[in-house]
């Protein structure tokens, strides 16, 4: 385990861009598929927040634990899920990441220790504490990272989790993706402090940092430092990453409750544009960057075709995997 350098090598930056571009293209496909009726239920797109997932992932060890919310596509892919498995899940295919039993809100990649997407706001914070507690008891050196939204900072589970983590000095990172809104309501209007996550850290004597969530390098740096502290036994850190969701809250929400100037300002700070600029500063030419985007689009197009071609889940699977024995029997 090492702390990353502040300024990554160009190859690293290109890899970060590639991953962000892949997530962007996957979610664009998810949106189109939802609009065309091929994705049922709901989706919560993270487009605009990719830097948080990719930057954090780059700073973590492969076996560290990640817990995400229903807005978790970016984390699933950042931790190793394939666009095809994700899109197949959204499209209710047997080949889906969760066998089409979870859906968009519950993407999970257990073999990469991405231990779930949780659709009850704030619920996963104590769960992430448990994974960190387990790592500490087992002496595995792993850290757990809980990603959550600004709105999650006002629910009870947030308070209980941060206090327990602080008291037990758990190797857990609390990374808030502050995108300024809950569903259709501005976080400002319902929160007693200006920084919903960082502003709460003093109540637990935890170190906190507010960072630019659209700068993947800044995220990578902050998470790396916090993970190092956690592994060294110095306990949890609160990181509040300022970012913005480019789509509405979910499904077809046009996000009318957000002022146009605000949206435009954030679109200018699109994490992919920010990183592209950095790459150009480092001597990479735009065509090389465009090639990464087009490769991502091709990869996703292939994933969409494969997912479309996949069969729906067999009805019998509705009655499997309630129990560890694979079954669902509750009575004799």
């Amino acid at each position: 385990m090492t702390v990353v350098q502040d300024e990554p090598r160009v190859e690293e930056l290109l890899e970060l861009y590639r991953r962000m571009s892949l997530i962007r293209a996957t979610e664009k496909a998810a949106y189109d598929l939802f609009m065309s009726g091929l994705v049922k239920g709901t989706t919560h797109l993270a487009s605009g927040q990719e830097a948080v997932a990719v930057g954090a992932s780059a700073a973590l060890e492969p076996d560290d634990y990640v817990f995400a919310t229903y807005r978790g596509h970016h984390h699933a892919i950042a931790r190793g899920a394939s666009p095809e498995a994700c899109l197949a899940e959204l499209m209710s295919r047997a080949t889906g990441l969760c066998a089409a039993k979870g859906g968009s809100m519950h993407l999970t990649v257990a073999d990469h220790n991405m231990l779930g997407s949780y659709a009850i706001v704030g619920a996963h914070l104590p769960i992430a504490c448990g994974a960190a507690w387990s790592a500490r008891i087992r002496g595995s050196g792993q850290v757990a990272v809980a990603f959550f939204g600004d709105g999650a900072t006002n629910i009870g589970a947030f308070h209980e989790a941060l206090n327990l983590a602080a008291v037990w000095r758990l190797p857990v990172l609390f990374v808030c993706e502050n995108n300024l809104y809950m569903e259709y309501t501005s976080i400002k209007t319902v929160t007693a402090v200006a920084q919903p996550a960082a502003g709460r850290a003093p109540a637990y004597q935890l170190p906190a940092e507010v960072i630019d969530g659209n700068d993947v390098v800044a995220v990578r740096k902050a998470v790396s430092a916090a993970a190092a502290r956690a592994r060294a036994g110095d306990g949890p850190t609160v990181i509040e990453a300022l970012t913005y969701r480019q789509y509405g809250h979910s499904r077809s929400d046009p996000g009318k409750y957000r002022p146009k100037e605000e949206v435009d300002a954030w679109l200018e700070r699109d994490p992919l544009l920010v990183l592209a600029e950095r790459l150009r500063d480092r001597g990479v030419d735009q065509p090389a960057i465009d090639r990464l985007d087009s490769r991502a689009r091709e990869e996703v197009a292939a994933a969409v075709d494969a997912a479309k071609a996949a069969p729906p889940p067999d009805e019998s699977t509705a009655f499997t995997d309630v129990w560890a024995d694979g079954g669902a029997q509750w009575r004799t």
Partner: protein
Amino acid sequence: MADLITYREAVAAGIAQEMRRDPTVVCLGEDIGTAEGVFKTTAGLFAEFGPQRVWDTPISEQAIVGAAMGAAMTGLRPVAEIMFSDFLACCWDYVANEIPKMRYMTGGQVTVPLVVRTANGGGLGFGAQHSQAVENWAMAVPGLKIAAPATPADMVGLMAAAIRSDDPVLVFEHKQLLASKGEAPPDDHVLPLGVAEVRRRGDDVTLVALASTVPTALAAAERLAGDGIGCEVIDLRCLVPLDARTVLDSVARTSRLVIVEENPYQDGWGATVASIVADEGFYDLDAPLKRVAGACVPLPFAANLEQAVIPTADRVATAVRQTLDSG
């Protein structure tokens, strides 16, 4: 009278009707104000009644329902929204331990006239944490009244009754019914809590249903009518007070009972209805009673899987034929 409204519109209509006549009625919940609710079930309320009557809250279910309780104990009639009924689990202490016990454990000193309204049930592919039918969770708690309307007119009438009630009432608004249309009720429509409605008359078998399973039961009844099987379809409307009398009287005539419930079979509300009939109506029964209930699994995401675990007209029809073939 003849004009139609949607079930979704009926929610707001019922609340608005009571807010107009009673200034102590206030609403609180997440995104219910200018956003008019994520299901648009509070459409128009903020515009008509303003920020002193319609309050947006943080994502704090305990604070929402806890504050509603405190307000109800001190002169208001709060209507709290819990966005999805699954989230009742986040404030269950209030719903199960505080609100329903306050009056009793103070020896009658305090009443808690509040409404908790919530979007309930599955069928929309929202997955395991946004699709549950949890009316049976509430039925496990003495001290709560429980309404689960099946039609727009009933929604208005039962919402009004819930708001006027001096007891705490949970109103379950079924997600699958939101877009359904029905006759608009007369002005100032109020229904009594705890009175079932016979939606269809029949002599061969009694179907007991609630909310989303009412249309399911009616569809099965329609199909079975083709084969000359007469189903009586009872819409319970409320779980507490439970109109067991109407069910027992019907079974006394039909001698057969099929209960159609969306919540899981294990500990579902239909079990209580079944146990009442198997005791008090035992000699009226000519055949095994059947429960067509949700499967004992979490709700799966994929539509074909979800349909495999919640009651369908097919499964109801099959159960009806079984009761008729036996005995």
